[in-house]
């Protein structure tokens, strides 16, 4: 994955074709980075669009072609974190405005969320989104076709052994989260019906 130095240089200089090539080859990668750092409620499409705009407006600030990917990662992370701060403020405001939910409300909410979950695959991704970014990022990057542990280590600027450990932890956390969710479901199913 990636583009050659000449194309990278041309992209920095503003050549539209080179820019498009850079974006085509890095769009999914940027999406993975955003997803690794964005709050679960945020919309990936919106944030990726924001990143695309920053790429167009500020790519000329990159001085060295070899720093292009690192720069794009910074842009993606900043965009995702900014969205996180906005979400956080919105959540706080909503909490203050909304009536206090009872435990029963919350339980119903969870049950509805489970009902509307679109299958096992979606559920795994939802759980992955709850992991800390340190674990989520290598896990999602590994799910990108062709991203090796070595490439991930280079992207995150950490040793390969760290990537391996983080992946193992991420997978274990996923397993434990899944088990926890299943236990919750079992409890809900086993709950006796109220008398008529």
């Amino acid at each position, binding site marked *: 994955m990636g583009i050659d130095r000449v194309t990278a240089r041309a992209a920095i200089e503003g050549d539209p074709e080179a820019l498009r090539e850079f974006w085509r080859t890095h769009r999914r990668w940027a999406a993975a980075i955003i997803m690794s750092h964005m709050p679960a409620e945020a919309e990936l499409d919106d944030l990726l669009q924001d990143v695309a705009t920053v790429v167009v407006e500020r790519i000329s600030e990159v001085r060295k072609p070899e720093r292009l990917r690192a720069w794009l990662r910074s842009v993606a992370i900043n965009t995702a974190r900014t969205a996180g701060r906005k979400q956080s403020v919105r959540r706080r405001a909503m909490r203050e405005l909304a009536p206090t939910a009872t435990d029963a409300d919350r339980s119903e909410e969870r049950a509805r969320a489970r009902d509307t979950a679109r299958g096992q695959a979606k559920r795994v991704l939802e759980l992955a989104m709850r992991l800390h970014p340190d674990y989520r990022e290598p896990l999602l990057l590994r799910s990108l076709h062709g991203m090796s542990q070595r490439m991930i280590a280079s992207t995150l600027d950490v040793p390969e052994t760290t990537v391996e450990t983080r992946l*193992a932890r991420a997978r274990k*956390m996923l397993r434990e989260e899944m088990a926890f969710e299943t236990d919750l479901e079992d409890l809900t199913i086993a709950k006796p019906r109220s008398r008529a």
Partner: protein
Amino acid sequence: MTLTREDILISRIVDGSSEPADWAELQTLAEDDPEALLRLAGAQRREADLRESFGAVLNDADEIDLPLGHTATVYTFRNRLQVWTGWAAAAAIALAWLTAGGVLRPNSTTSTVAGWSPAATTDEAFEQYQMMGLAEGRVLGELPKMMIQVERLESGQAEVTYLRRVLERRLVTDVYESGVDTQGRPELRPAQLTGSRANDAL
């Protein structure tokens, strides 16, 4: 959370980065705890699920393109100029003419053009020409300056001779090409253009 040896081995196998020795080690562990293989199967299922659902999300992401529409020209223009400026600085030719003018502000709009005032310097005039041209759609951008020569003067200054190339476009009704007639004399004749595309306004 503590990672066990089994966690590492399962992760490697799921990852596709395992060695035969890793498999052998996991099998040895499974002899004492057969559920280790169930945990491996579960991990593989989750990995496949994750790739499937993440892949679907990324397919949606493929729809997002760079906003390179009408602004591309302005953008390209500005960047080329910045790159040129950077090059000049690196070459240590710190000349005022490089930064004194010619930097196009991409956010300038037609309304700015409407309130134009006469230029005080040639740089200002050139900048005004570019901005008005961009607003009208006639100027597409400026190509990088081409250095012709640099001479050191007795005064200690350097005289730089360079070429500025501006890309313009215009809509015309008739297009001619140069050629020669049957007697070898130069002539202009109507050009045959192949292909066509939709009109976009100047």
